[in-house]
């Protein structure tokens, strides 16, 4: 009997199945649609292709941008003709970090664009404004930028072309970002033709994230990591006798200023930034494997910045010629990278191998200061093992103790880093001055990465500048 009951289905059994099938599919679409609107739309619509941002601007007064210490970096204001304009009180100082919103969007104006154009003012107030046909106040964004640190970095770079980026290693908060030559965002729209035509100085380019430079000796950290990976137990046994140059096939690599370093081990080669030794190491390691390590350190990849950034390139492989092998090992050759990328690698080394996602928007508040959303630090990726990061940290600390970074030696909280003097162009001896490093190696605090175009050696120019920034930050 029981069997019969099971067999005897309702005449509408199939119709029920079809009904549930379709209703389920519709509900899935509804959830998918709502998820898009709630989660993904704010990011999607912040595209330069989305002309509808102008519609939002007609409904909302663009919000204010603050520094982390509460200073106004950008706000809506009336000019002397009583026309509403975007006002940047710090003028050139935050030109690239805060950006502009008139000719396209960039910097924080881009990263926070949709929040600035969204009003989370109290509901009754918004309704009142809408009923009166008035615009609402857009939300404010509070950035991670520190005006004191930004000013120090801005002043330190002085008249040099170049860039400085300062990142808190444990959180990924970008504390300062300077690029020179710069422009005044208050008048960028009026002077657009002139500024954008200046290809010699390219003031609109944010050199910190978009500038691509030969890394020079700062790249030795990558070569070093590869050598350690290939010789895990024996890398300390490495030894090289530096006579001021190294010849491989037809290529001759000179040490900086043709210094003769004598007999060096791996640590000495790194702390003295011995080109000959590293060119030699370049011939000992596997080019394909070095390429893979570089890839793990985000070469040839999109960087995890919210603002537009350049893609660093590293092209060495087993098919490369002798010259390229030795040049690449010391950061010359065809390798190009952005200062921001260099900063990320340094951050990962300082943070036990883990890179925190760099960010510049700390939180969003409505115009009255009620917090709407807060962004907390998030892990982006592990770039290397904890042990490897520990070894590289010791090597970088040694650079400050005994090597090319000695000008940082007596800082009360200590520092670690790597210098670089990257040759560029065809004229011998012209070099960009690099430094990348971090303070307080015991418990790393901030990373500072500096490039000064055509300034000379890293240890003479970039290192003292880093010192000013470390001192301004002080011990925390």
């Amino acid at each position, binding site marked *: 009997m029981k069997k019969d009951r099971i067999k005897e289905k309702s005449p509408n059994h199939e119709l029920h199945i079809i009904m549930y099938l379709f209703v389920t599919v519709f509900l899935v679409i509804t959830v998918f649609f*709502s998820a898009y609107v709630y989660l993904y739309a704010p990011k999607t619509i912040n595209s330069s292709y989305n002309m509808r941002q102008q519609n939002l601007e007609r409904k909302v007064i663009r919000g204010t941008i603050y520094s982390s210490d509460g200073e106004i970096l950008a706000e809506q204001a009336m000019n002397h003709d009583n026309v509403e304009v975007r006002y940047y009180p710090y003028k050139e100082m935050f030109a690239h970090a805060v950006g502009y919103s008139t000719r396209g969007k960039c910097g924080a104006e881009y990263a926070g664009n949709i929040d600035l154009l969204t009003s989370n003012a109290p509901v009754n107030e918004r*309704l009142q404004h809408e009923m009166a046909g008035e615009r609402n106040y857009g939300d404010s964004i509070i950035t991670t930028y520190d005006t004191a640190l930004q000013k120090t970095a801005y002043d330190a770079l002085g008249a040099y072309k170049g860039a400085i980026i300062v990142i808190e290693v444990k959180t990924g908060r970008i504390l300062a970002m300077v690029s020179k030559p710069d422009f005044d965002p208050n008048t960028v729209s009026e002077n657009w033709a002139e500024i954008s035509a200046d290809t010699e100085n390219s003031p609109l380019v944010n050199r910190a994230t978009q500038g691509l430079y030969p890394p020079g000796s700062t790249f030795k950290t990558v070569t070093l990591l590869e050598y350690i990976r290939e010789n895990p137990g024996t890398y300390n046994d490495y030894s090289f006798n530096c006579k001021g140059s190294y010849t491989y096939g037809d290529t001759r690599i000179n040490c900086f200023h043709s210094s003769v370093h004598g007999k060096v081990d791996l640590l000495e080669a790194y702390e003295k930034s011995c080109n000959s030794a590293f060119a030699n190491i370049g011939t000992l390691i596997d080019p394909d494997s070095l390429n893979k390590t570089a890839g793990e350190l985000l070469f040839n990849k999109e960087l995890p910045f919210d603002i537009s950034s350049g893609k660093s390139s590293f092209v060495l492989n087993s098919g490369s010629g002798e010259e390229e092998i030795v040049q690449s090992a010391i950061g010359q050759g065809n390798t190009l990278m952005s200062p921001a990328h260099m900063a990320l690698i340094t951050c990962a080394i300082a943070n036990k191998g883990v890179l925190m996602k760099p960010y510049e928007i700390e939180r969003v508040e409505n115009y009255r200061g009620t917090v709407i959303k807060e962004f907390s630090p998030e892990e982006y990726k592990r770039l290397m093992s904890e042990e490897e990061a520990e070894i590289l940290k010791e090597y970088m600390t040694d650079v400050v103790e005994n090597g090319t970074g000695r000008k940082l030696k007596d800082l009360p909280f200590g520092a670690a880093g790597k210098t670089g003097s990257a040759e560029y162009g065809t004229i011998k001896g012209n070099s960009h001055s690099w430094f990348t490093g971090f303070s307080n190696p015991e418990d790393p605090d901030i990373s500072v990465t500096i490039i000064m175009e055509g300034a000379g050696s890293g240890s003479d120019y970039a290192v003292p500048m880093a010192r000013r920034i470390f001192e301004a930050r002080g011990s925390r």
Partner: protein
Amino acid sequence: MTTVILGLSRYVLAFFFALYTLHCFLGFSSGNEEERRGTAILQALFLILIHTGGFTVLYFKTGDPEVLFFCALQEVLFIGYMVLMRILYPGCSRLLINNMCLFLALGFVMLNRLSPGDHLRQFVIAVFSLIITLPLPYLTGRIKELWRYTYAFGISGIVLILLVAVLGQVTRGSRLSISIAGVSFQASEFVKILFILFLSGILSEDCFFGDSRKDRELRSINAVISGIFALAYVSIMVLSRDLGGAAIFFMIYVFMLYFALKKPWILPAAAVAGAVGVFLAYKLFPHVRNRFLAWRDPFSYIEGQGYQITQSLFAIGTGSWFGMGLNDGSPDKIPIVTRDFIFSAIAEELGCIFAVCLILVCISTFLMFINAAMAGTDPFFRLLALGISVSYAFQVFLNIGGVTKFIPLTGVTLPLVSYGGSSLLSTALMFAIIQGITAREGML
């Protein structure tokens, strides 16, 4: 005062539509005739409020008194249709009439805002369609013998789409429509109904209800014949490059066969066949590959094949929950917005809450359709109602799924809301047939 109305309109419209939607589902559960009548009348009132509200906003934005004139005319049409239907067919579903008028009303509001020319044409076609379909519920129930010319439906459908495939005009890469006396018809919209009639006939023959050996043999023969016809329909649709249409025909066949044979294995088998079909279409046709690419990564092809879908996503995203307000968005930036992307235009200007309500009303329409199949007693009409339910629901799925990037775009209309004469008339025919089946069985 004007600014107050304009400022609040998007909230008020969303609120009315939410109430309307609520009554769609209240209607299913309410018990006696008095209550159901009350629910339906209240719901019709919300419908009129939404329609009037939309047109009022458009009037203030454009300052064109013609807008108010159309508003009044359309409401006369809606109310007249509701009253006439109830007088002619006391057993028909009021909620379904309401939904039909609501879809038309939303279409009118959006078309008036987007393209006054399309709006006027749509209005004329709507008047024509409602009048011409008025006797159809009567005919559906009464002239049962006519429906039995099974093969006549099956063959004439094939002949029609073949004709269009050979002689038709090419629009946007597909050969879909044919011009007769200056009016262009999208034949597949009507052939869909012929196909459903054919399947309802062949799959409801007596052999499907007996259990003798002969019955089983005949059943297999009918299943095979219907399969051959279905394959012919789907193939012709694929060859005329109307993949959305082909998919709808396929789905109609699968679910009607499943209901007739009552074999569970048909559904997974159809899923496999469908997947193979999609794969082959992907391999064989470049335009299918393009749509897939545009679906998987629209922002990489933003200036090419991804343009439409990214514009649609911008529209929906910028509109957010309450929309930009009528006339304050830029839905006209989406190519073919009045036909394929009307849902995105609604989401942009009236908001996503409004759009979600629209999806829910579509679900309620589907439920009413399939309810007609469930409550019916005659196998032919049960199959007919099921075929129409599947056709409607799957088309809504293709349209809304496509414009929200849930699935690749297929270029089908959102029934009754989108601009398009053939789509409007054929959907009106389907609604009328369902009303006929409902009135015949005297339910709802």
